[in-house]
């Protein structure tokens, strides 16, 4: 501070800013399509190599896919002859008539044909509920949550299982199948696992030893056992302990098994989110006088769930695909109906299995990708608060 100019032996030591500099536009290489390419695809030699590799991979895979699914595909026909190379004397791609014919089986399973409108009504009601809950500008979202969490489960249950008193003949769940089962199992798992998971995560961090011990035991036990085992236990072992008359329906048992299994995973996901919240947030909430549940509901969980959205959705996507395992206890989910249909001798051709699996892949891809996209949008919306 007291150093004199002479000590520094430089000529220009004084500087006083005259006019403030105006901000100038960024250089061309950073903006526009060219800038985007440069930054995202060609930023380094490694990145360039990756870009080329992926481009080659796509160039190889996409034409093959398009060729199989569209160009060489058979679109009409009534039996396997339409899709056999030896009969048609041309290269055969996907065998779509097989899918057209078995489509209703893929959707409803063995649900009695005269009653299938009930499944359609269920799908429509579920779609309304999902849109009402997920579309943030939807009117009366408070009513929407009552509809989704109370009206929908009860009315769906009555609608699908039947209630003679209102003229709906009972339909045994053994007959349920296809997308109906997959969607029911996934929806129950998704809706139940988050609240259960949150309770377990809070329990694991509780200061009450009994609550903590229960949560830890539950989470570690359920996570430490394969889902297949949980399903087996639910469907085979449970009836050994509970008299047949009181033992719940096979599908219900599988639903409970999946919901509990998913909630154990969800608990760890939520706990990771809770760990990420700084201690100061808890202290700030306590210092303004919030009680434990208010603090959790208003301050901690909104932030914890936000940081952990990618993991929650990851668990949901995993859960959605894990629903295929219910076939092991004899429940005909969507994939199982495809399995059954593809070995039907009527459609026995070399491409039937591939076509069936392609349909299954597209089905699961649509649902999982939709979940992923919605989660991305939610993250972007919530990130608003982090912007400086």
């Amino acid at each position, binding site marked *: 501070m007291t150093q004199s100019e002479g000590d520094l032996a430089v000529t220009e030591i004084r500087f006083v800013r005259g006019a403030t500099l105006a901000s100038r536009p960024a250089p061309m290489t950073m903006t526009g399509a060219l800038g985007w390419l440069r930054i995202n695809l060609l930023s380094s030699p490694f990145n360039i190599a990756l870009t080329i590799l992926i481009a080659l991979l796509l160039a190889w895979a996409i034409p093959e896919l398009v060729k199989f699914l569209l160009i060489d595909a058979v679109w009409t026909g009534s039996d396997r002859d339409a899709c056999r190379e030896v009969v048609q004397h041309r290269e055969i791609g996907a065998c779509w008539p097989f899918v057209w014919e078995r489509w209703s089986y893929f959707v409803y399973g063995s649900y009695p044909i005269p009653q299938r409108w009930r499944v359609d009504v269920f799908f429509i009601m579920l779609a309304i509920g999902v849109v009402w809950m997920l579309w943030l500008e939807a009117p009366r979202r408070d009513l929407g949550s009552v509809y989704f969490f109370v009206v929908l489960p009860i009315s769906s249950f009555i609608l699908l299982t039947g209630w003679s008193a209102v003229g709906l003949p009972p339909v045994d769940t053994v007959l349920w199948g296809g997308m109906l089962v997959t969607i029911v199992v996934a929806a129950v798992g998704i809706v139940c696992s988050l609240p259960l998971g949150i309770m377990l995560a809070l329990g694991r961090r509780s200061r009450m030893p009994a609550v903590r011990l229960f949560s830890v035991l539950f989470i570690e036990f359920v996570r430490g056992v394969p889902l297949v085992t949980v399903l087996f236990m639910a469907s085979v072992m449970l009836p050994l302990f509970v008299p047949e008359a009181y033992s719940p329906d096979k599908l219900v048992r599988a639903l409970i098994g999946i919901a509990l299994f998913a909630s154990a995973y969800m608990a760890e996901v939520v706990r990771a989110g809770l760990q990420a919240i700084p201690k*100061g*947030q808890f*202290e*700030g*909430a*306590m*210092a*303004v*006088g*919030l*009680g434990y549940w*208010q603090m959790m509901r*208003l*301050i901690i969980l*909104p*932030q914890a769930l*936000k940081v952990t959205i990618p993991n929650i959705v990851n668990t949901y996507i995993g859960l959605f695909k894990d629903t295929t395992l219910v076939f092991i206890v004899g429940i005909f989910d969507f994939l199982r109906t495809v399995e059954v249909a593809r070995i039907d001798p009527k459609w026995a051709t070399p491409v039937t299995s591939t076509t069936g699996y392609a349909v299954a892949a597209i089905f699961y891809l649509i649902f999982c990708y939709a979940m992923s996209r919605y989660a991305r949008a939610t993250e972007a919306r*919530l990130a*608003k*608060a*982090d*912007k*400086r």
Partner: protein
Amino acid sequence: MSSTANNALHLKPSQLKTPVAVELVGLNKWYGEFHVLRDIDLKVMGGERIVICGPSGSGKSTMIRCINRLEEHQQGKIIVDGVELTNDLKKIDEVRREVGMVFQHFNLFPHLTVLENCTLAPVWVRKTPKKEAEDIAMHYLTRVKIPEQAGKYPGQLSGGQQQRVAIARALCMNPKIMLFDEPTSALDPEMVKEVLDTMVGLAEDGMTMLVVTHEMGFARQVANRIVFMDSGQIIEANVPEEFFNHPQHERTKLFLSQILR
């Protein structure tokens, strides 16, 4: 202007029920084996402004955090406006409602706007109607001179602004006692003054304040009493004049010689 606003909102300066705001008697606390607070005795009268200073690790933050039970104590008594702090959750909630706290790192809720930060506790804890809570919040945001930031998120504000929001948030609960835990230590030098000015204004209104700070200028200007702590004990307490000009204890003299250059 502010008095008319007060009338419109029915804001009464909150009254302590007892003349003694905070009383610590034989307070002891350990972190595991480490004895952080040793036989602390301190009586703070209503309307008093106490500045607590001392080297880092001396237990000053821990002491004021005991007053609203962010830290548990193991021995001794803490009585806040006639309510003794025990494991009784009702008592703890009662004390926390009446005691406001401002933290070094603000601890604002980043997912809520400034206004929501201020209305949250009144609405959920005091059951104030939302509209009224918002009016009160705007009143205090005006008082800390940032009403125009009400719709922003904490992350969009400067440190000094965030700390003033934190003060407003605490005031919205209409507390009888305010605790400040190094409120300016995390701020850029340019922003310290705006926060200190807000605190001076609060002191002039007669708020009972316990302030942990290294701002000795503030201590001289505002404090009724300065408490100097080291290694978990109160070493010396005195009025600012005497404390700065005639420190008695060797440790106090050493401390002052280090910080007053």
